[in-house]
């Protein structure tokens, strides 16, 4: 099975009203070329699940500025003033989730679990309306799993089987969201033949990656 596709083929998987997880932390490790493809296709009413909403001119922020996003599920929007503006104007729904809770909700969604019990958010407005469950005399908040139709991730290297290697702090949410979506597309800088990445080096097994988009030139976005 050939997993390597081009950006045009990747865009065929991205449609109006899709629920999409996107990797990256303040745009580090965000698949910038695929984001630009979504901008060009101009699909609307997206639900984006990610760590943050990037910057107005980088990463997920570009989709917000271009008014393609209906709902954001993120831990932080402070670096993108346009997100806050649209939220206050009731043009964009924002669900703020503590970062560690967000990643565990995604992890549990990808691991077939019924959610996660966390102490994070107890005694705060994050706990509003959520069940509190006592385990061995300690209280935890029940946080539900999240899944998506599509996960868009970025890695440094892939082999043709889709096995991935990430670099430095660009790993962040990428391997986790790859477990929790029906279709996973990875933007990579290089695809090497099978066998050139040792099994012990693999950071995300290729069985979790459906498609690879090779973007050789370092993509600097808009």
């Amino acid at each position, binding site marked *: 099975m050939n997993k390597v596709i081009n950006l045009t083929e990747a865009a065929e998987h991205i449609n109006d009203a899709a629920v999409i997880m996107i990797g990256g932390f303040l745009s580090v*490790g965000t698949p910038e070329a695929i984001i630009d493809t979504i901008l060009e296709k101009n699909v609307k009413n997206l639900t984006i699940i990610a760590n943050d909403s990037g910057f107005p001119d980088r990463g997920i922020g570009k989709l917000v500025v271009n008014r393609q996003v209906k709902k954001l599920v993120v831990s*932080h929007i*402070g670096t993108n003033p346009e997100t806050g503006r649209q939220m206050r104007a009731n043009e964009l729904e924002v669900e703020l989730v*503590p970062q560690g809770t967000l990643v565990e909700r995604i992890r549990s969604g990808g691991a077939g679990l019924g959610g996660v019990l966390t102490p994070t958010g107890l*005694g705060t*407005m*994050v706990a509003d309306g959520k069940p509190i469950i006592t385990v061995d005399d300690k209280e935890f908040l029940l946080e539900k799993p999240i899944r998506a139709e599509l996960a868009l991730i970025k890695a440094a290297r892939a082999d043709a089987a889709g096995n991935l290697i990430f670099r*430095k*702090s660009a790993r962040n949410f990428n*391997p986790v969201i790859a477990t929790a979506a029906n279709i996973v597309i990875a933007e990579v800088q290089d695809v090497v033949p099978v066998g050139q990445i040792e099994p012990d080096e693999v950071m995300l097994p290729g069985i979790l990656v459906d498609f690879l988009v090779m973007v050789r030139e370092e993509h600097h976005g808009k």
Partner: protein
Amino acid sequence: MESRCLIAKRVAQEFKDGDLVNLGIGIPTLAANYIPKNISVTLHSENGFVGLGPVGALVDRDLTNAGGQPASISPGGATFDSALSFAIIRGGHLTATVLGALEVDQEGNLANWTIPGKLVPGMGGAMDLVVGAKRVIVAMEHVGKGDSSRIMKKCTLPLTAAGAVEMIVTDYCVFKITSHGMILTEIAPGVSLETIRAATEADYSISTELKEMAV
């Protein structure tokens, strides 16, 4: 000494050899500059690594600190995904977290993530950090904008966590929050008890062993 540096220097005195510490944006980050040379403290960066080092001469687009600034990883450091990063935070592996505050109160409640209607950046990793770290140290300038007290009887802003703060370090003094209430334990050079009293809404007692901050 400039007040932000004074706070950072005092915070760094809390660290011990072998500690794993997460430093928030602003004054807490400055504490890294004052870690004593004879101890080894590892810094955790919640975007996915331990061994956070100084900003390098070369900018690597795949490596920033949790504030998005170009960063470096010291020899012996390690990278990982966000799930492991927060397992380290919540799982009791983090010795201390140092954060700023919008408000902190005498019961150790902390508010530092939103001012409803005005400022809604989101909590990022802060809620997990204050719940998970073994020690939560608030480092901030004693008086906020408009001369208002930020050390309160009861926080008025939405909380980041309840009852989590153990210590408050400001440019005026050090408070410890205990089961017996908040205690003034150290006072900055040149600051009077009256100044602290006037700038602190919270109730506190004065330690019988009150001393001057060694900064």
